[in-house]
C-alpha cells in the first residue's frame, strides 16, 4: 500500500471488507455465486411454468382472446368428456399391459444373462442396443413390419405359415397392443441392465448359504433373489409405469396420419394434451389435462416412497 493507487479509497474499503469476511462467510458467498444462475433457471423454467399451468387450467384461454377465470369448468368438462374417459382407459391399458410384460421379460433375460459367462458382453449388447435408438426412427421400422401383405414381413410370415393376415395398426382392437410392442422393445435394454446391476449387488454368500441348506434353484429365486431385489424392482416398476403413462413418441409415429387412431383407440393422455393445446389451441382445457397427468404421476411417486420405506 506504499505506492499510491489510482483510487486509494475504494481499494482500502474493499480490502477491509474482505478482511472482515470470515473464511466461512466467503464460502457462503461462493456457494450463492455458483447457484445464482441455476436458481434463476429453476425458478423461471420449472417453478413459474408449473404455477402457470395450474393457473391456465382455471381459465378458458384459447390464445385468441384474453384468459378469463372460469373456476373448475375445465375439470367439469373433462369429467363429462367421453374422449377423456376413452383416453384415460387407453393410458391405463398401456400401463397395465406394458409394465408387467416388459418387467417379466427383462427380469427373465437378466436372470439368465447374469449366469452366462460365454460371450456375456456380446449378448448384453444385443439386448441393450434398442435402448439407444430413436423412437421416431424405429417407429417407422415397426410400422413397416406390421403392414398388410405384400409389404409387411410379419403378415408375410403369417401367410407362409398358412395363418390368416392380421390388420394390426388398422384395427381398433389390435392397434394398441401393436404399438406396445416397440415401446416395450425399446425400454427393455435399460431394465435388463438395471436388473443385472441389482443381481450383481446381492452377496454370493447368501446363495452359498441357501445351497448348503439344500434349497432348490426355484426356492432361491423366490425366497432370496426376488426379496433382495426389491429396491431395484420398486425403482423399475415406478420408472416403467411413469414411462407408459407418458407414452407419446411411439403412438404419434406409428400412425402419423391420425395420431391416436384408428378412432382414438390408441390415444393416450399425452396425445390428447398435445392435440387439445397445439391443434385446437384450447390451452385452458389442455392445461387441466396436464394437471390430471401430474396428479396421477404424483400419486405413483408417493407410492414409491412408501414402498421404499417399508422394511423388506
Amino acid at each position, binding site marked *: 500500500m506504499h505506492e499510491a493507487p489510482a483510487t486509494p479509497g475504494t481499494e482500502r474499503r474493499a480490502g477491509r471488507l474482505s478482511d472482515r469476511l470470515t473464511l466461512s462467510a466467503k464460502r457462503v458467498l461462493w456457494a450463492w455465486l455458483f447457484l445464482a444462475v441455476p436458481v434463476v433457471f429453476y425458478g423461471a423454467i420449472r417453478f413459474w411454468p408449473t404455477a402457470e399451468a395450474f393457473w391456465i387450467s382455471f381459465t378458458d384461454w384459447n390464445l385468441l382472446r384474453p384468459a378469463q377465470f372460469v373456476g373448475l369448468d375445465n375439470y367439469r368438462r373433462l369429467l363429462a368428456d367421453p374422449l377423456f374417459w376413452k383416453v384415460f382407459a387407453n393410458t391405463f391399458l398401456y400401463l397395465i399391459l406394458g409394465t408387467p410384460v416388459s418387467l417379466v421379460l427383462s427380469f427373465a433375460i437378466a436372470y439368465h444373462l447374469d449366469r452366462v459367462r460365454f460371450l456375456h458382453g456380446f449378448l448384453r449388447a444385443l439386448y441393450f442396443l434398442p435402448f*439407444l435408438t430413436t423412437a421416431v*426412427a424405429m417407429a*417407422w421400422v415397426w410400422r*413397416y413390419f406390421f403392414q398388410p401383405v405384400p409389404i409387411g414381413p410379419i403378415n408375410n410370415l403369417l401367410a407362409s405359415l398358412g395363418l390368416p393376415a392380421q390388420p394390426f395398426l388398422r384395427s381398433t382392437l389390435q392397434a394398441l397392443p401393436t404399438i406396445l410392442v416397440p415401446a416395450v422393445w425399446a425400454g427393455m435394454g435399460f431394465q435388463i441392465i438395471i436388473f443385472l*446391476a441389482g443381481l450383481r449387488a446381492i452377496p454370493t454368500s447368501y446363495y452359498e448359504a441357501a445351497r448348503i441348506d439344500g434349497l432348490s434353484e426355484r426356492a432361491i429365486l423366490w425366497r432370496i433373489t426376488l426379496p433382495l431385489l426389491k429396491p431395484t424392482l420398486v425403482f423399475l416398476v415406478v420408472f416403467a409405469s411413469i414411462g407408459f403413462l407418458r407414452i407419446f413418441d411411439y403412438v404419434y*409415429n406409428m400412425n402419423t396420419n391420425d395420431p391416436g387412431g384408428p378412432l382414438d383407440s390408441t390415444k393416450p393422455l399425452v396425445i390428447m394434451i398435445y392435440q387439445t393445446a397445439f391443434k385446437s389451441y384450447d390451452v385452458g382445457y389442455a392445461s387441466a389435462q*396436464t394437471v390430471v*397427468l401430474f396428479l396421477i404421476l404424483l400419486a405413483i411417486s408417493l407410492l414409491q416412497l412408501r414402498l421404499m420405506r417399508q422394511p423388506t
Partner: protein
Amino acid sequence: MTALSKARPGRVVAWTLLFLGGIVMVTPILFMFSTSLKDSSQVFDLRLVPAEPTLDNYRTILEDGRFLRWFLNSLFIAVLATVSNVFFDGLVGYTLAKFRFPGRRLVFLAILSTLMIPTEMLVIPWYLMASRFGWLDSYWGIVFPGLMTAFGTFLMRQFFETVPDDFLEAARIDGLNEFTIWWKVAMPLVTPALSALAIFTFLGNWTAFIWPLIVSTRAEMFTLPVGLSSFSVEQSVAWEMIMTGAAIATLPTLLVFLVLQRFIVRGVMLAGLKG
C-alpha cells in the same frame, strides 16, 4: 462335480435361447440398415443381406439439403445441452455436496421437487414463453428447457459426496479460488459420473421429440426426429428412403455405443442405482 455336469445341457439351452432372443432384439435395427442399402425394386425382397447393396439412398437423402440440416440441428442442440448439463449440473451438485450455507436444504428440496413435474405439464407454459420472447423456431427455443436437469444435479451430488474434503482443503491452502478448485480439482475426480451424465444428456436430446415438435414450425429448424416424422409422411411409399433416414438418425448413437460400450453400461448402472 456331478451337479455341474448335469447343469451343462441346461446352460447350453439357456445360452442358445438368450442368443436367439438377442438376435430378435436387434432384428429391427438390422432390417433398417439392410433396407437402407436396397434400391426401390428390392425393398419387398425380405432378405436381410441385400442382393445388390447400394449407397444411392444415402446419396439422395444427403443431397436433399433438408435432411443434412436436420442432422446438424440435432447435433448442435444435443452438444449444447450436454455441455450445459455437464457444467451446471456439475456445479450445482458440487455446491450442494460440498458447501455448508444457509438455504442449502431449501435449494436441494426445491430442485428435487422438480423431478415430480412432468415435461408435458410444462410444454404449454414453455410454448407461451417462447412465443412471447420470440424463441419459436430458434436453437435457443429448442434447447432452453433442458439446459439443466434435476436428475443430473442429483447424480453429480451423489458422486461429489464421495470426494474427500482433504483434496479440496489442500487446494484451498495452495491459494486456488473456489471456482478453480471445482473445475480443476473436483470435476476430474468424478469423470465416470460426468461421462454417464454426458451420454444420457446427449442421448436424451438426440432422441427428444415432443418439445422440438411443438417449438419448431419451420422445416429448417426441425431436429432429426421431427424432420423424420414429417419427411416420412411426404414419402410414405418410399420405404427404402424412410429406412435410410431412420438409419442416419440411429447411426451416431450406435457408433458412440460401440466405441464406449463398457463405459455406457456402467454409466446406466451407476445412474440407475444412484439416481
